[in-house]
């Protein structure tokens, strides 16, 4: 699965994207965020307030409880500030 990060989520993690193989028990967006948090302090820093980190599945906004089944690209990013 491809993970992409933007804005301060990208800065804290220290990379813009990566490929990961997920354990079988990682089913939802929230599961994935929790699993990433356990991978190191840069991830823990990015997800220290998990409620503010947003996600998109294959380029569509998704909630924490959304299923990762069949998803190829997950994006994590802060609340958007465009316009």
């Amino acid at each position, binding site marked *: 699965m491809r993970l*992409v990060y*933007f*804005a*301060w989520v*990208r800065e804290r993690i220290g990379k813009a994207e990566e490929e990961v193989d997920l354990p079988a028990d990682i089913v939802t967006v929230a599961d994935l965020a929790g699993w990433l948090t356990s991978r190191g302090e840069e991830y823990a820093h990015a997800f220290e307030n998990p409620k503010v980190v947003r996600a*998109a599945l294959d*380029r*569509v*906004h998704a909630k924490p409880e959304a299923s990762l089944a069949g998803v190829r690209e997950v*994006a994590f*990013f*802060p*609340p*958007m*500030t*465009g*316009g």
Partner: protein
Amino acid sequence: MGFAPTIRIQQQPFDTAAETALLTAGRTDIGAVVAFTGICRGSETEGDISALVLEHYPDMAEEEIARHVAEATERWPLLGITVIHRHGRILPGEDIVLVVTASAHRQAAFAAAEFLMDYLKTRAPFWKQVERPDGSAWVEARADDDAAAARWRES
């Protein structure tokens, strides 16, 4: 929708007048055009701004804007829509975003332009970093922008 909307995400500046002219050229069914331009300001309450740097999620940005454009054409009887959003480094006084809506009557054109701007602010995957003389910082999302976007769900 009976027209092809224009949606572009680009680094270079855009020409509001030319985009608006393109939308209305040779047509006599349009009675109202609303053009919204968002501009980089040179200062905020927090102090002077040297530049804004806009990061975006390229593929999603275009798809997400297209989804909201499609929703706008379902909600209002529109005759044309143009949305252009810049990314990269933008200096004070430069344009950031353009939304142009055209309709037979003004209410639809105004409502659709406001709807699209409210959604661009809160749902389009762009993130602003502000460069100040003493360093740079990510712009925080505004609660009133979330409230502005939420009102379209109530009606």
